[in-house]
């Protein structure tokens, strides 16, 4: 074999060819491609492969080290689980998009230079939005459009930052950055969007829950974890991340209590879990970074498991609104059981995965003496138990019997959930296996009497707190509603401002004499020529064309810069 062959192409090319295959062969390919890529990864020697000299810079298409391998393994396990989970789906476009998306995330993780990273980065944006649009509703279309604009903006920040970094005497090499110039700050912001930093987070809660039942499972694995990988590679030890991460663990837990859409609750949970990883990266010690990436690995699995159970509920019951569900354990006992395994894993009960991963981050925070941060993270951990540990299984499968009687999830979905459950418990029971592939040597013992006791105490009393509030009628009921978050700024305020200013401008134009009027007429005619019903720019929706033209302009700039 040649180590120079980019492993991402196995999934990307496979994904593109997939729709050409007939039914059974397509299913086989869907399952085998991640397995083949995994085998390829195991055989890859460490080091930089596929080096290309280009315009005085070195591109490294495949960089293999412990950090990239860990995320590579996680992504391929996720791709395999996704393949099983979505095996019943007839829509070839979704399978194809899912594989290309997984492949581009894989390519980004193995990219050794910023330009290669950028190309895969944008490819993840373009391929993943198809999983949202696959819902085929107006609502999903709009949410997908907002999503892809934000994702492409993240790529724009990355490439703009890269160019500035080059102009300031840096190279294309993707290594550790210092936050000391505009270039590295722009790259930091680009990564921050993918990691759903506070105020940059809302694309996630807005768009993910609009994806298909299987699509959201796929989405949860790659984009945000790619952000975490990039942050761990580029900004480990950046102090500001400790604070950013702590805020990320906190604000979503309040929203999660009052959110009615259970998949949106899990979307808030994504940001919350990423927060713990971001704190670990910010601390930057070997223990902390190990904890952050180990937790990313565990999170890919338990979040997939939880979302799979909600995907199965969406498929069978037709809704994931807490206000409409309840009592489903009678119809879907297996799904309920797997959901509880996911809930226990994310809540960090002993013998489940987060107990052995998140605790490394907590320990690292304590070792560095950040008492206040530690207390806030402990509070956020109790919050995780509330929304992901109790709320998700409770309102879907227990609570008041909604009267919904449906079939158990299809066999392929149950198989995927069973495998994910096995992995979650496997990591919890045999942490040494995961610890062995972490970037740094592990000198941490998760199973001590004190750790088991304190964690169980925290969780059991948090459960008691929730049930006490429920039984005394204080707990807020699930209501059909939406909650305003930062997206209000661009979904409502921005729109209203645009309308108001357009009206003001047109009034002003009407008030200024014929000359201005004819000038405006000229502009309108020109606009109509390009943007009107037959205009060249109207062929894609206006927001899409904007993102496209920005991308074209920046790529042209990049090209001319080198020429």
């Amino acid at each position, binding site marked *: 074999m040649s180590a120079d062959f980019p492993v991402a192409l196995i999934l990307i090319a496979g994904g593109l060819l997939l729709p050409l295959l007939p039914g059974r062969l397509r299913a086989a390919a869907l399952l085998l491609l991640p397995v083949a890529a995994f085998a390829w990864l195991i055989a890859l020697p460490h080091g930089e492969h596929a080096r290309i000299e280009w315009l005085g810079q070195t591109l490294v298409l495949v960089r293999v080290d412990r950090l990239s391998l860990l995320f590579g393994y996680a992504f391929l396990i996720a791709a395999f689980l996704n393949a099983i989970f979505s095996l019943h789906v007839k829509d070839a476009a979704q399978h194809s998009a899912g594989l290309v998306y997984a492949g581009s995330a894989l390519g980004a993780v193995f990219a050794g230079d910023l330009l290669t990273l950028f190309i895969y980065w944008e490819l993840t944006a373009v391929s993943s939005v198809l999983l949202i649009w696959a819902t085929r509703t107006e609502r999903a279309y709009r949410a997908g459009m907002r999503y892809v604009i934000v994702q492409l903006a993240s790529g724009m920040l990355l490439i703009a930052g890269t160019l500035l970094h080059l102009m300031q005497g840096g190279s294309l090499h993707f290594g550790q950055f210092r936050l000391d110039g505009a270039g590295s700050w722009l790259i930091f912001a680009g990564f921050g969007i993918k990691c759903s930093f506070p105020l940059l987070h809302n694309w996630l809660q807005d768009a993910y829950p609009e994806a298909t039942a299987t699509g959201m499972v796929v989405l949860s694995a790659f984009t945000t974890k790619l952000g975490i990988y990039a942050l761990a590679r580029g900004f480990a030890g950046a102090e500001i991340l400790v604070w950013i991460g702590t805020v990320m663990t906190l604000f979503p*837990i309040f929203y999660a209590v*009052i959110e009615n859409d259970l998949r949106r609750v899990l979307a808030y949970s994504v940001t919350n879990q990423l927060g713990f990883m971001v704190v670990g990266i910010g601390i930057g010690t070997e223990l902390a970074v190990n904890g952050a990436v180990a937790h990313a690995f565990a999170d890919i699995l338990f979040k997939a498991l939880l979302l799979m159970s909600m995907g199965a509920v969406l498929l069978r019951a037709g809704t994931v609104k807490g206000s409409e569900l309840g009592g489903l354990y009678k119809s879907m006992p297996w799904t309920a059981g797997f959901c509880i395994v996911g809930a226990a894993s994310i809540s960090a009960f002993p013998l489940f995965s987060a107990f052995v991963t998140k605790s490394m981050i907590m320990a690292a925070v304590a070792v560095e003496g950040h008492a206040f941060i530690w207390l806030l993270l402990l509070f956020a951990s109790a919050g995780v138990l509330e929304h992901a540990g109790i709320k998700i299984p409770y309102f879907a499968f227990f609570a008041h019997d909604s009267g919904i009687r449906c079939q158990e999830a299809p066999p392929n979905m149950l198989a995927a959930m069973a495998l994910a459950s096995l992995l979650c418990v496997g990591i919890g029971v045999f942490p040494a296996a995961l610890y062995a592939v972490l970037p740094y040597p592990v000198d941490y013992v998760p199973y001590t009497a004190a750790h088991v006791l*304190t964690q169980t105490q925290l969780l059991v009393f948090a459960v008691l707190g929730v049930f006490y*509030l429920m039984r005394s009628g204080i707990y807020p009921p699930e209501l059909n509603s939406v909650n*305003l978050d930062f997206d209000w700024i661009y979904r409502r305020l921005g729109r209203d401002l645009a309308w108001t200013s357009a009206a003001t401008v047109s009034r002003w134009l009407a008030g200024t004499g014929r000359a201005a009027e004819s000038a405006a007429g000229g502009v309108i005619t020109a606009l109509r020529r390009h943007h009107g019903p037959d205009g060249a720019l109207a062929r894609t929706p206006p927001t899409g064309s904007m993102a496209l033209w920005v991308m074209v302009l920046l790529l042209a700039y990049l090209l001319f810069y080198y020429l």
Partner: protein
Amino acid sequence: MPDGNKYWLDRPENVARLYRGLWALGAALVLTDLVVHRHEDFGFAGWFGFHGVYGFVGIVVLVLAAKALRRAVMRAEDYYER
């Protein structure tokens, strides 16, 4: 309801039994604190029953705060479609 009361959890007295059992478990865990020797990085974390109290109070504060947040941010389901 077609399947009546054949499920164990359908009976309120069983749910109450479960709830009481959980309190008993909590009490046992707090008592275990007396026998397990803990080295905590922060002095306050070593206080008797610290994690239990923090978990319970934390959850109650969280839920009450979220209820208050609802008054500020909750809108009708079709808010963005209008």
